[in-house]
């Protein structure tokens, strides 16, 4: 069993890579569409809403199957990892957009007006009034999204991405040591999600230390 550990760790490394890259994509898309939903132009807001509502309400597995099995018919044939990263990024991005939108909307208009009337410029208002509060509001939910996304990387095993779940399945069919193999896979995920949970809790307590 110990001899098979490197194989699982290889898979875990793929899981981490997938999570990190998907996070970057998710943040990019999420911030873009989240802000888009707060602009004064209705058609632009509608586009943002369509993105958020469609990708939040449909299963990730269907999105991954689509990216992997359906897109090739349009001429876009992505390898497993890329298809998974694209799907996971778009899916998580919809959730990020929601968090960003709530964050922006939660800063009351009154504060912005007060800051401007005190003579602060737009940049100064952003820097000293809006962003600090926006960060402390959005970082905890974003942290939780990161944890959820790390777990969602497991779905990539269905499109043959060689992450820790896929490698675990291969090991299981080779060795029939089901308990050990899947306990190890579970431990692998816990090794990622539990520290993240602690970190999110810590950050949240730090950011809200003046509000308690």
């Amino acid at each position, binding site marked *: 069993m110990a001899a098979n550990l490197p194989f699982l760790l290889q898979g875990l490394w793929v899981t981490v890579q997938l999570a990190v890259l998907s996070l970057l994509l998710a943040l990019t898309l999420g911030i873009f569409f989240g802000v888009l939903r707060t602009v004064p132009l209705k058609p632009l807001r509608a586009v943002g809403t369509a993105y958020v509502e469609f990708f939040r309400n449909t299963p990730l597995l269907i999105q991954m199957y689509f990216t992997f099995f359906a897109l*090739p018919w349009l001429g876009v044939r992505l390898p497993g990892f890329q298809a998974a990263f694209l799907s996971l990024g778009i899916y998580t991005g919809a959730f990020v957009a929601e968090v960003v939108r709530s964050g922006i909307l939660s800063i009351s208009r009154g504060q912005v007006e007060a800051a401007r009337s005190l003579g602060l410029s737009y940049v100064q208002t952003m820097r000293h009034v809006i962003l600090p509060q926006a960060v402390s509001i959005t970082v905890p939910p974003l942290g939780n999204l990161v944890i959820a996304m790390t777990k969602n990387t497991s779905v990539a095993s269905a499109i043959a991405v060689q992450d820790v779940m896929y490698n675990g399945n291969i090991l299981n069919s080779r060795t029939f040591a089901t308990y050990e193999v899947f306990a190890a896979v579970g431990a692998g995920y816990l090794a990622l999600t539990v520290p993240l949970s602690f970190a999110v809790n810590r950050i949240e307590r730090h950011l809200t230390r003046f509000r308690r």
Partner: protein
Amino acid sequence: MGLSRRTLIHSASMAPAAALLAACGGTTQNASPSTIATATTRPAGTTAPQATAFPATSHMAKVVQRGKLLAGVKQDQPLFGLLNPRTNQIEGFDIDIVKEIAKAVFGLAASADATPRVELRGVTSAQRIPLLQEGAVDIIAATMTITDARKLEIDFSEIYYMAGQSLLVPKASTITKIQDMDKADQTVCSAQGSTSEQNITKFAPAAQKLLFAGYAECVTAMQQGRAQAVSTDDIILAGFLEQDPNLKMVGGQFTQEPYGLGMAKTSMGFQEFVNSEVRKMKTDGRWKQIYTKWLGKVGPAPEPPK
């Protein structure tokens, strides 16, 4: 004073457990639920189930008492076990074999329709043996190869079909045998948890492997150029040949894959019964009939395997 918390929790936890068990036991999610034919609707010429013919401790008696044979079959394998989207029934070679077994258990004549006495459950390669071991199905007829490792876990019937592993490639491919795939730049697709996957490692160790939950996804992947070949038993590949004329089968049978029906080691007397039935089928022409019905396109019915 209201209910104490303990009582509340106790009664609350009983209800969902019962519902869960009821839902689990009563739900079939593929073929239409089986019902027991009543005396008035039994087709002419059939006899009553010979429950008393089986010893009380035998597995057959259990099946007769339950009223139906639970069979685990593939549902995504053309020709052997495929769920027809339009009729919502699973159909195939394995299904017909299992129906004959059911007819024998319930004492129906060869001409009778065994469909009401059989409940088909779709299984994947990885699920076959665990489901059999815990009694969720009586018998497995799911393109399962007899191997020594599996013999440790379950009982097999005698060989009911001799397949061999082969390669499915696009028509334009230059690959002619499994050894051609033994290069690092070649990708072979197969199913997780199958002997096919392990044979690929044996015969083409340098090849990359792509593994999905089922072979149908493999064929799709190969059509998209993600793999150069799909490898599994030739009969499974033949089914996909029917669906897509742009494929061809090459490499002959580079392994011998004897298919056996699977039974749990705890099924008393079942293995002998099933074996005698399979032998009867091979000698009285039913085997050839079933072969011609499903595999007629592949070629004329050969002699049944020993």
